[in-house]
């Protein structure tokens, strides 16, 4: 009954990171984060070193989830783009495909118009990358030979809690 684990391989990470790094430059962004709709960080790029990405990912996903439910209440399917304007920094959030969230942080070195334009282009590339990722996961389903977890022993689990 449970959803299968969501798996990301090196190749997926590289492909997605390349798109995101290009977007940082094209949009003059401070930082860009990709998060899945369950609140897990997928990749990050830009100059925002040291921000609490775990919190960021969880809050962004919750924000998108809450706004999505609001959309349904007023008769929309979803609100695919969210924009939060601050005094210095702004947040531009877009849904990519059905499962991912693209977060762009930018300041006065960029503009909403530029970010919008570049995000639009990058979204298509990202959607394609996520499709490829899903295909790879289908082709190589977790099995005893390629999943490190099939071999977990009760002892391994106990060891986690020994500290």
């Amino acid at each position, binding site marked *: *009954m*449970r*959803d*299968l*684990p*969501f*798996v*990301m*391989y*090196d190749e*997926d*990470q*590289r492909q997605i990171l390349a798109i995101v790094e290009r977007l940082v430059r094209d949009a003059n962004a401070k930082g860009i984060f990709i998060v*899945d*709709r*369950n*609140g*897990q960080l997928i990749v990050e790029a830009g100059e925002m070193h040291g921000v*609490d990405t*775990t*919190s960021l990912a*969880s*809050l962004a996903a*919750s924000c998108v*989830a*809450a706004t999505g*439910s609001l959309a349904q209440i007023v008769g929309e399917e979803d609100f695919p783009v969210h924009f939060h304007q601050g005094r210095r920094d702004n947040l531009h959030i877009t849904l990519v495909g059905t499962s991912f969230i693209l977060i762009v942080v930018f300041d006065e070195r960029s503009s909403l118009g530029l970010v919008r334009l570049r995000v639009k282009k990058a979204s298509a590339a990202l959607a394609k990358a996520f499709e490829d990722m899903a295909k790879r996961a289908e082709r190589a389903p*977790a*099995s*005893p030979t390629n*999943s*490190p*977890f*099939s*071999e*977990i022993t009760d002892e*391994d*689990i106990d*060891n*986690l*809690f020994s*500290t």
Partner: protein
Amino acid sequence: MSFINYSSREINCKIVYYGPGLCGKTTNLQHIYNRTNPELKGKMISLETEAERTLFFDFLPLALGEIRGFKTRFHLYTVPGQVFYDASRKLILKGVDGVVFVADSQAERLEANLESLDNLHLNLAEQGHDLSSLPYVIQYNKRDLPNAAPMAEMQRLMNPNGVPEFEASAATGLGVFETLKSVARLVLQELRDASR
């Protein structure tokens, strides 16, 4: 839905603490936060009302250690227990890997516990989940209070299937880690069985 990242060699799982208003879900997370080494925990986020009732959720990321070379992380969430926050509870349950049901042992809260348990069944069913196939444990909290209902009665009403259960007093920390370890263990076993 657990997330296995081969690139950063991490595995993330989501555990949700469910239960009626004021049963002690937030208190569980606070105790875990207070007793965990700084390098193993992230920031605890509490989205709450001015009266310290959970409004949307509490969130606490924990790193447990390594398993087969993978960093094992658990994301703990609580739901808001007050009945009228049901829309938020549904959102938080999305992608859940394991559930802790925190019951309030006070005799006058028996009804509220059962209502919340029904609500949990309903909200999981909406997502195609089912408590019988999900890692799931029960915590009987507030055992320290003089008006706590007898254990036998609570077990009979709330745990007909005999899932792992724990007596607790989250305010002092009694039973809190036992509960967490038990559900984390079930989640990892499930992950193993799913990849076999």
